[in-house]
């Protein structure tokens, strides 16, 4: 078995992960780089779908489905709806001027990535997952999640429901004609 840099053996799973992760990273860059807001939103949709696939590979099937339903189904539709409503799709409504802030931001981002990566990645690249037994595999399903959510995490669940209620009331209030 041949080894890539860092002593990690190259397996078919690693190649598949590389393809999906590369596409997701490309879409993430696209969200920031595209001038047109609709193109950014579509890049974000593709990114969320690929992330849902990665959730499946992490044995979190329920959350992968939730990701597709909540993010690509609800949140992105809301984004696209507001973009269309504000007519920000027109490319020259909000022309982004060249300014030093842009290059400074990219430079700071690269610095942050290098700083974090040099601290964290050399250790974590050695950690491999335990093989998935049938007993462990059922922890990603709806039954385990529902059981935990309604027993150990009952109070956070109620707090989140109150938060969502406040969010509904707040967005209705903000959308009224006269504030």
């Amino acid at each position: 078995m041949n080894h890539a840099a860092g002593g990690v053996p190259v397996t078919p799973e690693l190649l598949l992960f590389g393809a999906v992760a590369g596409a997701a990273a490309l879409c993430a860059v696209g969200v920031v780089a595209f001038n047109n807001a609709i193109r950014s939103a579509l890049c974000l949709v593709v990114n969320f779908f690929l992330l849902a696939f990665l959730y499946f590979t992490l044995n979190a099937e329920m959350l992968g489905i939730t990701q597709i339903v909540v993010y690509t189904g609800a949140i992105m539709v809301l984004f696209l709806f507001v973009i269309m409503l504000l007519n920000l799709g027109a490319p020259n409504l909000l022309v982004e001027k060249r300014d030093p802030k842009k290059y400074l931001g990219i430079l700071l981002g690269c610095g942050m990535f290098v700083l974090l990566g040099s601290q964290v990645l050399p250790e974590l690249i050695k950690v491999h997952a335990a093989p998935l037994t049938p007993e462990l595999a059922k922890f990603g399903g709806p039954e385990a999640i529902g059981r935990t959510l309604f027993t150990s995490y009952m109070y956070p669940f109620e707090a989140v429901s109150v938060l969502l209620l406040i969010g509904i009331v707040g967005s209705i209030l903000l959308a009224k004609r006269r504030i």
Partner: protein
Amino acid sequence: MNGVPLGAYIGLGMFMFTTGVVGVVVRRNPIVIFMCIELMLNSVNLTFLAFARYQMVTKVADSTALQNSLMAGQMMVIFVMAVAAAEVAVGLGIIMAIYRLRDNVDIDELNLLRG
């Protein structure tokens, strides 16, 4: 996937988070800034799930402790998703209200709070 080390998932999460930070700093369209915040939240979700999956290596005593340790990451992801949904609903409402007030949503020209 067994052949993938934890560092690969964390690396992808870090890259997406950094991209989101750069987007928030660089872009001037508030909707794109919101999308970058979503990108950051999702990268954190990916990190949570990766750690939740890869800590199965450790031996845990009984089944209750095992379940608690395995479900903590997934629960956190559920709550992050709920908070993200609430945040997007209210935030886009605020952007709509500002647009009705000013007919312009350029983030560099919003100085209503300046004294």
